[in-house]
């Protein structure tokens, strides 16, 4: 599988970029599957299935009720059709909503008891579920600390969390990091208080479905004033065929805390498309800071568009406290269809939201992705940098909203989105919504190149570049900037993409 090599690329597009994109669209490295005995819920979705999932997770009655009311609402809702994506109708009754390895029926008490086959799966994916210094010397990263760094991992396999590493060490710092099913049992007060408070149950079609049937996911609580001692991560793996994955992530960053959270995802290569509908909620209290990074590498389908993951995800951060800050960074290379808008509600005064995205669509992939920056508090700031690259016959859409409410005085937004087309059969689209309801705020959507950092420009000019050259360098360097915003653990993926520049972009 590869992008047609005889594809004509217009002049001015950097060859390194074309090669890098081809590489990404080449053989899917994570397309193998794990042969393991699975236990499935009956196909389809109905109140019984919802109860069954709740039951499998040993949930209290309030949670079951919460799910059932969500299901009731979902039945009344229609699938959204406004995104620029096109896929055959999904038959929700002809797939599994719950699948877990048989070895997980009895919850392993520690990682040592986890089925070696599962451990081997993650090992093969490059995510060893061992409490060790990992990624000490990623190739080519001289700046990696010699003693390595710790990353706690919550590994989700189809519908269940297989295990979470470093829990004890995190506990010492007061950090709670566990699967959401465990949190519902062990920390019901926190879950009750925050679940659904950022993404309401009936937010949208897929979020509502997720609220009814989510099977597992990760839960993070960082207590006031704590800087999480290590990076946290969740690795999602879909393995079973014909099965949807519906995970739920809830991150609570209490006053003055900090956490960097990573998310990775892969799936085997299969002929039929599979559904992935996740919800991520982040709550930020005063002075809290959360960095959320994703490398989305779901199976994108083959070059004829067969198979692949339908990735319909709702991600939202609520900056409730003053001076809180959230940063979304995403590298989207996988999925047959992506529908994803990580958003920031900037409620607290002086809060900040940032969104950095590189979306690469090859073959028949379709991506409709972007962000919403909703400015409610005064003096709030947001920045959006989105790079969309399409090749083959792929379609890539940036869709975003910047909204300045009347009370969000003296707020600021800067948005830049560039698109690059490799070949003449693909498409790149931009659909920004801009709503400004007060006059002390400034909103700029791709204003002019003069908005490029003056200091950087000055530096380049000092070294003898003319202005145009300098601007080009700074703007095109941005892809690299997005990659540098990624935590080290994604260095491998990032390495693959650093060659990409947006030279010759269409708009």
């Amino acid at each position, binding site marked *: 599988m590869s992008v047609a090599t005889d594809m004509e*690329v*217009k*002049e001015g*597009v950097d060859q390194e970029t074309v090669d890098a994109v081809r590489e990404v669209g080449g053989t899917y490295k994570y397309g193998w599957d794990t042969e393991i005995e699975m236990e499935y819920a009956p196909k389809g979705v109905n109140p019984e299935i919802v109860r069954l999932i709740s039951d499998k997770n040993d949930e209290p009655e309030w949670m079951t009720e919460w799910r059932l009311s969500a299901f009731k609402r979902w039945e009344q809702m229609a699938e959204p059709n*406004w995104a*620029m994506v096109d896929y055959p109708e999904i038959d929700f009754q002809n797939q599994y909503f719950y699948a877990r390895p048989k070895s997980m029926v009895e919850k392993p008490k520690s990682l040592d008891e986890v089925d070696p086959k599962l451990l081997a799966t993650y090992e093969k994916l490059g995510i060893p579920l061992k409490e060790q210094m990992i990624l000490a010397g990623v190739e080519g990263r001289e700046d990696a600390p010699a003693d390595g760094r710790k990353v706690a991992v919550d590994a989700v396999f189809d519908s269940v969390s297989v295990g979470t590493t470093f829990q004890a060490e995190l506990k010492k710092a007061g950090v709670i990091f566990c699967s959401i099913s465990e949190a519902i049992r062990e920390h019901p007060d926190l879950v009750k208080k925050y679940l659904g408070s950022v993404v309401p149950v009936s937010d949208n079609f897929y979020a509502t479905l997720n609220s009814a049937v989510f099977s597992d996911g990760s839960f993070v609580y960082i207590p006031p004033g704590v800087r999480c001692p290590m990076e946290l991560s969740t690795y999602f793996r879909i393995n079973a065929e014909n099965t949807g994955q519906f995970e739920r992530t809830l991150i609570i960053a209490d006053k003055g805390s900090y956490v960097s959270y990573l998310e990775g995802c892969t799936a085997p290569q299969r002929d039929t498309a599979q559904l992935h509908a996740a919800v991520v909620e982040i709550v930020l209290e005063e002075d809290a800071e959360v960095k959320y990074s994703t490398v989305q590498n779901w199976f994108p389908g083959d070059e004829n568009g067969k198979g692949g993951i339908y990735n319909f995800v709702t991600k939202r951060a609520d900056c409730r406290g003053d001076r809180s800050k959230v940063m979304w960074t995403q590298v989207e290379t996988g999925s047959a269809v992506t529908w994803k808008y990580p958003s920031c509600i900037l409620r607290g005064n002086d809060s900040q939201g940032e969104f950095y995205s590189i979306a690469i669509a090859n073959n028949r992939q379709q991506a409709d992705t972007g962000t919403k920056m909703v400015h409610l508090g005064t003096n709030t700031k947001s920045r959006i940098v989105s790079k969309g690259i399409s090749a083959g016959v792929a379609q890539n859409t940036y869709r975003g909203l910047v909204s*300045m409410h*009347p009370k969000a*005085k003296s707020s600021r937004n800067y948005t830049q989105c560039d*698109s690059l*087309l*490799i*070949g*003449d*059969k*693909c*498409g*790149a*689209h*931009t*659909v*920004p*919504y*801009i*709503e*400004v*309801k*007060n*006059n*002390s*705020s*400034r*909103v*700029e*959507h*791709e*204003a*002019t190149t003069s908005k490029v950092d003056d200091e950087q420009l000055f530096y380049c000019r000092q070294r003898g570049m003319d202005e145009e050259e300098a601007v080009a360098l700074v703007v095109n360097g941005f892809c690299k900037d997005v990659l540098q915003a990624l935590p080290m653990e994604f260095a491998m993926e990032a390495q693959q993409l650093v060659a990409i520049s947006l030279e010759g972009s*269409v*708009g």
Partner: protein
Amino acid sequence: MSLAQTKEKATKERLTSMELPLKGWSASARSDAYDRLMGMGLPVRRDEYWKYTRPDAFTSADVPRAAVQEDNDAPIFDALDCHKLVFVDGIYSEEFSDGLSIDGVTLELLSSTSDVDIHWAKSLYGSLEKKGQKPVARPLAAFNSAFAQEGILMHVKKTPPKPISLHYVRESDVSDVMLHHVVKIDEGASITILESGDVAARCNMAIEAEIEKDGQLNHVRAQGRDHERNALTHIFAQLEEQSQFKSFCLTMNGVLTRNETVIEMRGDDGMAHVAGASVGDGDFHHDDTVFITHDALRGESRQVFKKVLRNGATGVFQGKILVKPDAQKTDGYQISQSLLLDDDSQFLAKPELEIYADDVACSHGSTSGAIDEEALFYLRSRGVPAEEATNLLTLAFLAEALEEVENQEISDVLNAHLEGCLKRGC
């Protein structure tokens, strides 16, 4: 009730008391347009394309009353030498017009040709509107094609000696007018069409323009200071090889204005510039919606819109550049900017790109903000009174859009008009 059902019901209700004028050459086009309208239904607030502007005033059975305002100024383009055609509440006035005869151009009225079965406009009337329904439905334009009472049919065979000025006068508080102009520009011919004044208490106007190879259409519209009126306009233009279309609109107040421009660049090397400047006060709501489709090589398009808003006014811009797969070497530019003079005003924008060709350059920018305090301070420190300084900076802000008007004489007239309005507080 589903959205479709709600719409169908509302549309039927709206049309019950209306009679479709099915006579002569336009009958089949009107009946087609009627079917289109019934298929789409009149727009409602929940329609994505009407997200930022309420269509109610355009679709209601009753005409929102609009008191006629005293205006002692002479029509803005009277200062220019042009051939003037006047419509009073949508009815052509022989008395105030220069007549339907000018060198190089055939001028006829839609109403007076209604008995004829064969007419050159038959192939055009409603056809560009019909094409303009995809990919976004514009039911109010189909409504216009079906029911339009009057309009000018203009066949430009040779460049006329002077611009044609369409001036609208309103005398009724409840006039409800649908005008439909058809403009056909033959190869190599060019024309300047000016529009001024206010059509009616509620107006739904459509212009269909076909520009043949090397043809040129310059269109300048000044929507006047008639505050209470509701105005909806559509321009559908189709550009053949090396043809040019330029349109500029100046709007000074009006509770509700929606100007839609739909352009198809069909021939290679075409050029389309659409621009607008608006200044709004209070309950002013102004919506510029532009859709440019590039379907040929080396097309150039520009959209430049500037809005100054104060005392709670609302400005809307929905602009789109669609580049089809074979429209290589397209050069598309789009800028929408607002200057908010106070905290109550708002600017809502959706500057879209949809690109299917790889060797093109399309840029779109949108900004919104307050007046530059430093510039204001600079002027004030040099003794310019606050109000005057604000007006000066407002004019400077609008200048980029006004510069789109190439003809110096016309541009001077517009500038003087704008300056006068700002001084008086519109």
